[in-house]
């Protein structure tokens, strides 16, 4: 009985947490009782080894996996905060994201305009103008500003990296004309701009880095790391990243319908310097020619697949319902351009559609690889370097994704067992050669198209920043 009582104190004795009197009492007992001494020593041995093993050490891989989950969560939370905490899955068709690219080369006295389209579902955003701040504040007169705005809107609203809306949904026309507001800025310095100005209309509530205020005629100076939110009927957010990159996020006003009714075109047109795309196109020319020949040879060996005349292949992306542009500044670039066939044949149904609209340049693809790839190749022969670059970007990223992600055959299941070399040449050849017929599901089409849009965004980011 005494031994049992004593053993209750063994654990504390190991920890040296007993008071001196109790500790002495235990020690005295251990000196007299061989059985308890053996028990105590066994306990000391076992617990000693347990402690010696210590906590496991976090491996680099484990840390990386956890941090990747955290980064995803951080991004989700960022988005969630802008849409009121709605789940990311539901937001996927709602949220519009775009990357605004800083102009890499100086362009004297040209403003960069951001056009916000106030669409029917209620992005009640008053016009905002973004422009790079090159060091000195603008001192131009209002008349200069007006003239420059007009010129820049006509000449600078050009190619854009645009997010794709949910496919298979009708495009509803905007009911409010796009509003453009910009003011001229001095010629940017040779170094990439680190600050920029944002003008927010005075009827907007603005939260900048957590501080609430209202917009005003005086522009805000934004620095990397700043986060600006504004809210009217809708809400939008601008995040200033490193290197002057801007991320613009916006959401429709509540209680506007959310998914799946959000299906219209991009809400934000982004001025984008085509130089990176042109450089990419130039670099890829040789491989594209090689690719084109390979695809031609591969398709010659295969039964002809009806493309334009196939009535059962419906494009998952209906053509945008063209609206007469109310702004003359953007109407000059709203002419649709269709690849590979007369516009009337492929404007609604076809594997590749290239279109200039209010938002800028858009490349749509629909169909299986055997349809899309040759049509993309056809587009490469177009003289428009920007289109070439977009096409190349997509093909190149298909290859990279294929190499990186073994589940890529979700898009083209038959490729799974086909030999695929580590080249664009090999990939596209395999895609074509191993897809004997068009029997992809609509889901596959949708995936394919979403993926292409992601590629286009990513390649531009990589071209500009050298990283994804």
């Amino acid at each position, binding site marked *: 009985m005494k031994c049992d009582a004593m053993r209750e104190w063994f654990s504390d004795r190991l920890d040296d947490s007993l008071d001196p009197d109790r500790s002495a009492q235990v020690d005295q007992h251990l000196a007299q009782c061989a059985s308890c001494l053996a028990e105590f020593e066994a306990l000391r041995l076992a617990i000693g080894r347990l402690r010696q093993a210590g*906590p496991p050490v976090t491996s680099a891989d484990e840390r990386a996996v956890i941090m990747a989950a955290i980064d995803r969560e*951080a991004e989700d939370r960022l988005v969630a905060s802008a849409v009121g905490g709605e789940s990311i899955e539901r937001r996927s068709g709602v949220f519009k994201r775009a990357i605004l690219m800083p102009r890499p080369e100086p362009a004297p006295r040209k403003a960069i305009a951001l056009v916000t389209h106030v669409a029917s579902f209620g992005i009640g955003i008053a016009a905002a103008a973004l422009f790079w701040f090159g060091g000195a504040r603008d001192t131009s007169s209002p008349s200069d500003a007006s003239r420059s705005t007009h010129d820049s809107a006509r000449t600078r609203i050009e190619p854009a990296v645009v997010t794709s809306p949910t496919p298979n949904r009708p495009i509803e026309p905007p009911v409010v004309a796009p509003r453009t507001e910009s003011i001229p800025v001095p010629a940017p310095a040779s170094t990439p701009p680190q600050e920029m100005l944002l003008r927010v209309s005075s009827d907007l509530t603005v939260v900048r880095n957590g501080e609430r205020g209202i917009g005003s005629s005086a522009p805000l100076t934004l620095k990397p790391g700043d986060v600006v939110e504004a809210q009217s009927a809708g809400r939008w957010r601008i995040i200033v990243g490193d290197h002057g990159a801007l991320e613009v996020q916006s959401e429709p006003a509540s209680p506007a319908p959310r998914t799946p009714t959000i299906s219209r075109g991009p809400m934000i047109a982004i001025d984008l310097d085509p130089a990176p795309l042109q450089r990419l196109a130039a670099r890829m020319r040789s491989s594209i020619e090689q690719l084109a020949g390979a695809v031609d040879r591969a398709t010659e060996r295969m039964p002809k697949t009806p493309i334009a005349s196939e009535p059962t292949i419906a494009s998952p992306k209906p053509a945008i319902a063209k609206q007469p542009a109310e702004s003359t500044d953007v109407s000059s670039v709203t002419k649709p351009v269709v690849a590979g066939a007369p516009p009337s044949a492929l404007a609604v149904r076809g594997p590749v559609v290239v279109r200039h609209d209010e938002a800028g340049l858009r490349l749509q693809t629909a169909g299986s690889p055997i349809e899309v790839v040759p049509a993309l190749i056809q587009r490469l022969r177009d003289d428009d370097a920007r289109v070439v670059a977009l096409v190349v970007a997509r093909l190149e990223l298909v290859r990279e994704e294929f190499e990186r992600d073994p589940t890529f055959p979700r898009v083209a299941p038959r490729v799974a067992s086909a030999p695929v070399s580590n080249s664009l040449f090999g990939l596209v050849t395999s895609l074509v050669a191993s897809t004997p017929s068009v029997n992809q599901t609509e889901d596959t089409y949708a995936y394919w198209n979403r993926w292409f849009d992601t590629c286009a965004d990513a390649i531009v980011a990589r071209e500009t920043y050298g990283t994804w």
Partner: protein
Amino acid sequence: MNPPLSDEQLALDAAAGSRDAFEELVQRFGAAVRGVLEKNVEDYHLAFDLAQEVWVKVFRALPRWQPTGSFRSWLFSVALNHLRDAKRSKARSRIVYLDEFRSAPAAPKSNDPRGRLEEHAAITAALTAVPEPYRTAVVLVDVNGLSYEEAADSLGCAVGTVKSRVNRGRFAFKDLYLRQEGDARDPARASESRGVSS
């Protein structure tokens, strides 16, 4: 060289938006959190998944964390609460993995009765066999080095309760561990004890 920042300072920095600070916390406690979970679910992969979820929860809750107690006691309390939630959830399906990660490592060639891997496996096996709630108390105090007070915070119980659990858990561990050690030294006895006829 500056002394390493305390867990609490890192947590405050992370709450203020420092990704590096958060990553350092993950480095310090990532495996420990996973280990606590693994001792309960007895599945490395499931514990790994749960641990990721725990860290996401920590990330979400960190801005509201108040440094009134130790960070690690709060961290383990988040982990254990999440574990309870996960166990309650019937939605979690069993996942079968194809890799051989969990296969027993080959016995090292050594004159010692146990090599390091075998020793670690023996400790893990004995610890896993300790019944709850004593096992978690021992893992927190003896494996991860929490004080009784910190463990009490993590477990949401009184310090005396933790001491009692640790005491019982230690004796249980001792019996299980030394029995394995005896089996390792005397395989014939191990077979007998398992009821296997040779």
